[in-house]
């Protein structure tokens, strides 16, 4: 540990690893004063917003799922809701139930991947999950089992793990079979011991004691823990606005050092993601998830961004138990083929759902021929980057007296990874660069 001597250094982590997409962290310290902290998003632009022009309504959700592989289900569903809004389509109760199942399968897959593959190595102090294959084989095998279960769940519901094709406007092109759904239900029930072991490992993780209170933004729904649907809720105002006012929420702006746009609502920045959702909607979690929160020492509201990983585990438990109940419901109601025809027309639609990394907004317009005439997608990471940079700006001066350059670098990478940023879909994320 370094102390009183004068510190002048630059950190430049040119490609932050174990995050999805490319980003860079740059820090300048001169004579113990932090001159600059920047989070640079270095992804190449793909221009989805513009190239959806000309597409048929049903093609839009299918194509925009390619914004992100990890959140492909969420992008597809947010876009499906948006296009339905524009076309005046109201989906059936069966369709909504199937979409919720698809949503929860994706939360399980993404959270397991993030907690085990990206976050645990940091806390254990190894550079990746690979050394754990030798030192902690039981942990790795459990991670693979849980991930496989989540993937098979998505494939049963959607036809394929990545970019599923079964969901479309109004409903399902091909319904999941009763037998396949029963198998997933039974495997989820059988996975409970694995899930409880997940809690045990998270209990051993040393979470840095850093707190910064900020605005927490997520969906909120009157009747349930909001993942698939709801209004946009702020912890600052303790109230919601409808999704069609998303621009007033995100207030996007541009900075030269990042190809993603940045967001802020009631203050300089806000937090979206598992921590925001658990903070905002704690009461609506399933009792099993609340018990796990208590066991892990999580109390809402929680202002430690590193605790996002713990919030993810709480959501894993919620989704697992909720999925078992919803699969039961789907099996009892007996799925029926639905009419998927509609007439394309002019209009504008707004849609939002939660994806593992936070709240996601889509917005499309259609011309008189029913062809897409433009779009907008605001992904969670582009809402979060500003808050991550604000966290870093607060963290570096606070920790500078007690941490070496190396420790600072590691903690900032951990901080960034705790957010589980999805840089490739922010288009547009991570390297730490301390400049000299």
């Amino acid at each position: 540990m370094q102390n009183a001597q004068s510190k002048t250094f630059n950190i430049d982590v040119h490609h932050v690893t174990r995050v999805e997409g490319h980003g860079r962290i740059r820090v300048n310290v001169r004579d113990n004063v932090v001159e600059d902290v920047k989070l640079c998003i270095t992804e190449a632009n793909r221009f989805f917003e513009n190239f959806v022009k000309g597409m048929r309504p049903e093609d839009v959700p299918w194509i925009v799922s390619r914004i992100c592989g990890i959140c492909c289900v969420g992008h597809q569903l947010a876009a499906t809701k948006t296009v339905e809004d524009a076309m005046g389509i109201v989906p059936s109760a069966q369709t909504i139930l199937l979409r919720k199942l698809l949503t929860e399968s994706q939360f399980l897959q993404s959270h397991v991947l993030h907690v085990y593959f990206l976050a645990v190595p940091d806390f254990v102090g190894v550079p990746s999950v690979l050394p754990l294959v030798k030192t902690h084989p039981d942990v790795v095998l459990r991670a693979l089992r849980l991930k496989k279960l989540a993937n098979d769940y998505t494939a049963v519901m959607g036809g394929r793990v990545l970019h599923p094709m079964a969901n479309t406007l109004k409903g399902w092109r091909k319904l999941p079979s009763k037998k396949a759904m029963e198998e997933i239900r039974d495997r989820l029930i059988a996975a409970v011991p694995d899930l409880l072991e997940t809690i045990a490992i998270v209990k051993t993780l040393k979470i840095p004691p850093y707190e910064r209170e900020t605005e927490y933004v997520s969906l909120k729904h009157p009747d349930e823990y909001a993942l698939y649907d709801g209004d946009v809720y702020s912890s600052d105002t303790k109230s919601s606005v409808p999704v069609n006012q998303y621009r007033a929420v995100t207030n996007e702006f541009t900075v030269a050092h990042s190809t993603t746009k940045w967001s802020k609502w009631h203050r300089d920045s806000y937090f979206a993601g598992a921590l925001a959702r658990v903070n905002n909607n704690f009461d609506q979690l399933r009792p099993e998830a609340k018990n796990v929160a208590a066991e892990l020492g999580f109390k809402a509201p929680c202002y430690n961004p590193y605790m996002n990983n713990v919030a993810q585990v709480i959501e894993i438990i919620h989704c697992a138990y909720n999925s078992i109940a919803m699969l039961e419901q789907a099996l009892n109601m007996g799925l029926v083929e639905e009419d998927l025809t509609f007439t394309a027309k002019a209009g504008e639609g707004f849609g939002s759902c939660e994806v593992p990394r936070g709240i996601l907004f889509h917005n499309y317009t259609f011309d008189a021929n029913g062809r897409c005439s433009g779009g907008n997608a605001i992904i969670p990471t582009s809402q979060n980057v500003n808050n991550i940079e604000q966290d870093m700006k607060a963290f570096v001066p606070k920790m500078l007296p007690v941490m070496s350059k190396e420790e600072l670098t590691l903690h900032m990478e951990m901080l960034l990874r705790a957010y589980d940023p999805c840089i490739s879909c922010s288009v547009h994320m991570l390297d730490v660069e301390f400049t000299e």
Partner: protein
Amino acid sequence: MKPKVAFFDFASCEGCQLAILNCEDILLDILGLVELVEFREALSEKAPRYDVAFIEGSIHRDEDIERIKDIRARSTFLVALGACACMGNVQARSNFVAPAENYKYVYGEEARNRVQIDEEYWPLWGHTRVRPIDKVVKVDFYLRGCPIVPGEFLHLVKSLLHGTAPHTPPNAVCVECKKNENECVYDRGETCMGPITWGGCNAVCVNNGYVCDGCRGVLPHANIPAHKTLMLEKGINDADIRSRYRLFCSAEPAAKGA
């Protein structure tokens, strides 16, 4: 010695790398046979040389060109991983519009002008054209699809471990579709790219009630005029035909002028 294997990504959704992590059943076996030296999504390490480099994503900027050339120079075999790397994929649709127009639409005119003239950050914003990898460097093997098919990835890895070349026959998706005894979507009045698209996916989209949108690219000897005639005969108009061709395959030479 175990072959050194690395993964790199350019503009993509990272779904193809994820598809590999999704081979849970045999992931540890593969890791036992190769030495994984770079995989940014899961590893923090970096290495100087690779026996096999898997490249995901398409090339958009000058700085991407430099990076891919450097990777090529350090690799024995280079594999294009997925439709983004093989053919530019859906994002190649933005080639129909000037980059400046795209920036203006996404960021607004004021922001476009402000960020693009910032000298320090110019490389971030210097968008040129969406290109598949082989427009910039030599590609040894292609793993097609959006996303890739994990079985084809395994076949490629096994072949390379044995010192042989993987065999991926140029059959149309139609062949697999008919083996699966699907009702042809043309008989439902919809369009399908299956007759001219590289197979290997087992017609997974048609099996699940959808159509083939050609995410694996156009076959080298595809009869495009015959395919268009078929679509016209089924009552599909020119605009809809163009729309199908431009969904995934807009950068494919065979689909140009569609």
